[in-house]
Every structure is written in C-alpha cells, then in structure tokens.
C-alpha cells in the first residue's frame, strides 16, 4: 500500500467513523427517550377531578 493510498483510506475511515459515532449517539439518545416514555407510561393515572356539584353550606 502506497503512502497516498494509506492517507486516502484514513480520510474515508474518518468520514465513516464520524457518521457511525453520530448514529450511535443518536441511537443511545433514542433508547434513553424510550426508557423515559416507559417510565412515564408505568406511572399511575392521575386521579380524576371531583365532579360533585357545589352546594350551599350553612
């Protein structure tokens, strides 16, 4: 392998590595969001508001 070939390979590996790193970071972020959605879905439903009619007291 000549020096030029080594440098060209390095340049394309840098591009590939960068894109791969970016995709991995985004995938990790999406996994975290998924976990948070699951945690939110597992929470109990908020109690419904009291719908009784107000009455005059006293």
């Amino acid at each position, binding site marked *: 392998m000549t020096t030029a070939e080594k440098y060209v390979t390095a340049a394309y590996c840098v591009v590939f590595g*960068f894109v791969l790193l970016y995709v991995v970071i985004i995938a990790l972020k999406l996994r975290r969001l998924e976990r948070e959605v699951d945690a*939110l879905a597992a929470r109990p439903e908020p109690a419904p508001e009291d719908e009784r009619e107000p009455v005059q007291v006293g």
Partner: protein
Amino acid sequence: MTEARHNSLQMARIPLPALAAASLALVTTALALVFFVAPTDADQGFSQRIFYFHVSIAFTAYACFIGGAWKALVHLWKRDPRADLESYVAVHQGVIFGCLVLLTGSIWAKISWGHWWLWSENQLVLFLVLFLFYCAYFMLRFSLDDGPQRANMCAVYALFGVILIPVSFLAIRLATRFIHPVVFTRHGPNFNGWILVTYCVAQVALLVLAYTLYRVELAGKRLDLRLRELRRAYA
C-alpha cells in the same frame, strides 16, 4: 399554518426508513465510483480521490448552514417555535460536516502539500473562521435560559453567520496567490467525464445523508421536548 395543513405537510414528507435506505444506497454507489470507476488524476495521482467526498462534504456543510439561517429567518418572521429547533439542528449538522471538511482537507493537504495546515491559505482560514463562528452558536445557545429570548438571539446569530459563506466560497477566487485547487470556475466545473459523474453522485449522496441525519436528530429533539412537557404535566 393550521394544524390540518401542518399534518398534511408532515404526511407528504419522505418516510425516514426510505431516506435511510436511499442514503445507504447512494453512499455505497459513490464509494464504488470513487474507488473502482473514476480515473486516477494525472497530476495528483491516487490522493485526488479524497476530493470527491471532501468537496461534497464542504458544500453539504454550506447547505446546512444556509438551511439553519433560513429556518432562523422563518422563526424571526413568523415566530414559529418549531423553526427555532429546526434551525438549531441544521446548524448542528453543519458543524459536524464542517469538522469533517477540516479533517479530510488536512489529510489531503498533508499528501499534496506536505503540511497538515497552512495559515497562509485564505480558503482554509476562512473556512475555519466560519466553523468556529458556528461552534460559538452552541456556546450562546447553552448559556441562555430556554425561551423566546434565546430563540431570537440564536436566530439572529445564525443569520449573521450565513454572510461568511459567500466570503469563504469566493476567497479562493479573490486570492492572488493560492495553492488550494479551484474546482468550480465561471465556466463550470474543472473536470468532466467519470470524474464529474462521480462527484455528482457523491454530492447527492452526502446531501441525502445529511438530510436523513437532520430528520433523525429533529425527531429525537422533538420527542425529548414533548417528554419534558409531559413530565411537567404529570408532576
């Protein structure tokens, strides 16, 4: 824009899996053309093959910055909070591609000129200025509290940055002494045949790849925002 119209525009968008598949196919085709079809340059030899991705990445970075500035203008004009997030993601993409331009350019410079970097080259220094300007965008964004004031300041900053793009692009043509090659002249590209075909495919591939990454990141950021709102509502 009404909600129904917005939803119809969302529906008209290309689905993400299709975009990802197109990116993969185009990048693979571009790499095959670069290494197996494009002829070896008589002047620079094998090292000229960096050109196909280096120049394409540079134009993709410019496109991202222009896209970010356009979304910033939309934000300032229509006060649309979605445009602020879109502008931020576009600038982020531009910085990533800008970093790749500097790295691939340095490698090419080392083979062709024997140096990783030359401070005497206007084209290189102006691109570095543009890159650092947009890096500072994040310092501004993360130093302010979330809200309309931050969105407005970031939009103005992103708009100012776009002025540097024609300066960076024209620097090489205005310079009296340069060693950085001129790819596009007033009479068109400085190459033809398979070199031109390979360059065009690489350029389309990188633009589609950038758009795919932009859509993925934007979807993640929107989901994050929605989750934060839901958490606040549940609290």
